[in-house]
């Protein structure tokens, strides 16, 4: 029994035609059933991945820019805050100085007034005292001496005496 191939018989051309037609039909069917939708889906996926990568990169850049902006704003805010604080300190100092100054001034003027009052009181008291002493001395002297020494003479005499006292 020698194995022979079916090729050695009459060439079945019909089979070849059938095989090629069947294969082409299968190609058309697969194109609509599988290959077309699959390539479309694969392309769509590739596009989507590309877009996602792009947008991710953009989002990343945006976020970085935003971080920088926020940091800048934060620094500006800090500066502003410290400026506000130093301003407040300065104004508080100024105010307290002004208050102190007015208080000092007031105290000084009060002191002056008081001194003036005291001087006045003193001179008034002195004057009253001079008068009282003169009158008293005249009375005493007139009683002691029993002389008719005029009051005016006595007064000038005592004034001269008191002036001498003042000069000492």
């Amino acid at each position, binding site marked *: 029994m020698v194995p022979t191939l079916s090729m050695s018989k009459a060439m079945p051309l019909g089979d070849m035609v059938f*095989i090629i037609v069947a294969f082409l039909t299968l190609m058309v069917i697969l194109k609509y059933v*599988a290959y077309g939708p699959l390539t479309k889906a694969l392309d769509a996926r590739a596009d989507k991945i590309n877009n996602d990568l792009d947008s991710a990169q953009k989002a990343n850049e945006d976020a970085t820019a935003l971080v920088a902006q926020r940091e800048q704003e934060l620094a500006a805010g800090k500066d502003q805050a410290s400026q506000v604080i130093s301003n407040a300190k300065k104004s508080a100092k100024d105010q307290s100085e002004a208050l102190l100054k007015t208080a000092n001034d007031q105290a000084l003027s009060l002191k002056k007034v008081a001194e003036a009052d005291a001087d006045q009181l003193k001179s008034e008291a002195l004057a009253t005292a001079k008068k009282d002493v003169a009158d008293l001395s005249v009375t005493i002297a007139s009683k002691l001496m029993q002389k008719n020494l005029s009051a005016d003479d006595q007064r000038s005499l005592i004034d001269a005496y008191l002036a001498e006292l003042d000069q000492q």
Partner: protein
Amino acid sequence: MDEPTSTFSFLGLTFNWTTIISTLIAMSIVVLIAVLLTRKVAIRPSKGQNAIEYVLDFVRGILGDQLPANLARQFGLYAFTLFLFLIVANEMGLLLQVKMGNGVTYVKSPTADPLFAFTLAIMSLMLAHGTGVKALGFGGYLKNMFFKPYVAMFPLNVVEQFTNFLTLALRLFGNIFAGELMLNLLASLAWGTHLNGFWIILAFPLEIAWQAFSLLIGGIQAYVFVMLTGVFTAQLSGNE
């Protein structure tokens, strides 16, 4: 094997029932697989879609290794169909062979038929030659095919073109045919004339082992056929 065949004539052409039935069954299986796996094609793939996408990627990878991008894209559908069809056709006979009472095997691997393998090889090579003519012009195509790398190589190049065709077809046919032949021999060993039980015990693991081996062979041959189609196309269109 000198097996009886069942043929009929139509429009003066001879048709072989075995080829027609086996081819149609292989086609139906391919279509069924394709339809089932691509019922819901989405950007986020399901399990089935993933599987067939893997096949598509695999085929694209085979072509992409050989051909420039635009040609690989053009050949995508052809190679995808060829690969699916061949792998189903190669494995089909391992599972299912139907032999009728008149001794005719109506269903087996269609690729175990030399005519089938030659037809596919002719189709692939015609595509490759057509691509060559389209890419280089007829003169350029002839020059590229016969006078490369120099004119003196002409006789060898003629032989090479012929052997390309023969090897493409015979490699596929031989592997699958031999695989099925071995399966049949092992099966007839199991049902030997005497000591039935003993032969089955011996033949059963051998059959399993050979089927596993043939599965591998069938896959490899489908891969090789698609790859060689790409290689010849690249050679004939000057893209080596």
